């Protein structure tokens, strides 16, 4: 909420109002939730009230448990996300550059993008053990495809007129790539990376549910086993907050990097 005080230039009117409406909406939702869990359900086995959840988050943070789980999940996510981003851009580039590569790779990309690869997590755990690498692999599988599909689309849809403009100056194909195709694909690549955030976070947690020593998924699973609803919800809320923060950070980055797509 700190950012609402200093909105990006050019959005002075819209942004604070959206934030105020959003904040009121969230507060009302929390209030209803609190009332429902105290007055309607009134059973800590079925539903935890927001006040209990925030107390649980504070308790977990105090004991250091929260940081231990968060850092493991964060490392798994960051590694998988970074590898998938690099690989995705390279694969997308190869598909945009070579028709043969596209024909070879397209069925795999389309097929695996549509497959719920998350269901393969138990298999990855069998292969790679319950350490971080099985989760990294799940994240790679989930993030790779939207990034490569978007990179390919972005490079392929580069305006012919802009390419011709550069060609009229006698530009080489390398210059055309770096001065026109790549910059004009950046909005697409960023959109693919943004899609990957949500998919990657889900991948980390679900893979941890299947088998892990630590991580937010582990926290959620062991809290569920112990019927500790406040801790379970604490894990979920922290994850949601991470997703919101990462996506918001990404939107900020988009405004900085590709402002021309916003009009």
């Amino acid at each position, binding site marked *: 909420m700190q950012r609402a005080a200093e909105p990006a230039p050019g959005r002075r009117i819209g942004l604070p109002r959206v934030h105020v409406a959003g904040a009121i909406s969230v507060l009302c939702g929390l209030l209803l939730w609190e009332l429902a869990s105290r007055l309607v359900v009134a059973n800590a086995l079925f539903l935890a009230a927001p006040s209990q959840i925030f107390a649980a988050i504070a308790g977990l943070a105090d004991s250091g448990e929260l940081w231990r789980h968060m850092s493991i999940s964060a490392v798994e996510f960051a590694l998988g996300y970074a590898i998938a981003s690099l690989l995705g851009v390279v694969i997308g580039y190869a598909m945009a550059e070579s028709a043969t590569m596209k024909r070879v790779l397209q069925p795999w990309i389309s097929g695996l993008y549509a497959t719920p690869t998350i269901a393969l997590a138990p298999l990855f755990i069998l292969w790679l053990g319950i350490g971080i690498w099985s989760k990294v692999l799940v994240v790679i599988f989930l993030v790779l495809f939207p990034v490569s599909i978007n990179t390919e689309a972005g490079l392929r849809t580069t*305006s012919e*007129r*802009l390419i*011709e*403009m*550069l*060609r*009229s*100056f*006698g*530009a080489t194909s390398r*210059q055309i790539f770096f*001065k*026109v195709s790549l*910059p*004009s694909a*950046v909005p697409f690549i960023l959109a693919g990376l943004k899609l990957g955030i949500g998919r990657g976070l889900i991948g980390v947690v679900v893979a941890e549910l299947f088998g892990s020593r630590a991580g937010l998924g582990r926290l959620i699973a062991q809290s569920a086993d112990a019927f500790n609803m406040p801790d379970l919800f604490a894990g979920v809320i922290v994850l949601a907050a991470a997703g919101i923060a990462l996506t918001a950070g990404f939107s900020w980055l988009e405004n900085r990097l*590709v*402002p*021309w797509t916003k*009009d």
Partner: protein
Amino acid sequence: MAPKLQIAHLGKSFGELRALQDINLVVERGKFFAVVGPSGCGKTTFLRIVAGLEPASSGEVRLDGRAISGPGGDRGFVFQTDNLLPWRTVFANAIIGREVAGRVGPVERQRTLELLKLVGLEGFENYHPRQLSGGMRQRVNLARALAIDPQILLMDEPFSSLDAQTREIMQTELMRIWETGRKTVLFVTHQIDEAVFLADRVLVFARRPGRLRESVAVELPRPRTLAVKRTAEFVRYVDHIWRLIEDDVRASVIEEKV
């Protein structure tokens, strides 16, 4: 005067369609040539061949005596649509031709800044294209072509997307800019009055197949102002050219309806 551009027996076919047939032409150094004709007469194809963006089917184009075989930094192309890179500032757009040539030192920067000033964009160097009007974007388009200091300027209906008033302003602006350096110019347009106002010579193209029908020398005194458009002499030139292409224009209008 020394010939800057020589075109001999130039022909172009797209499959069965003969877009251009046997064009022969000499453009002297420092002259402003306009090309007019009905749609489908191949005038844009002609310009694209000179730019090297399109290969000729027959004949040849020589610039300063050398046959051209592809695009190059000796020709500056001003596009019909501005084709500015939206992520670059006005300055970065204007200097891109220099970048392609691999030379961007203080001299090139200084020259680009001076050109932006010349086309009336001083103070807008750090703006992005989306912040500019159509007329200003076309000024950047022109500065970008001039920034490589080309031997010849090739202009493809650069003012056709502008409203009538802005177009007239841009015509006088182009005359003012041209008077400062007297580059050799080949200017394609479908507007006869624009051609007569700007050019030393108007090349009138005919269609089916696209060919050079007549080359009209315009002997109106320079520098020209918009007032010249209301003189009897100016109107005589326009009438003469209109009569040359009238039947072709009617034929192309009927075809477009069908």
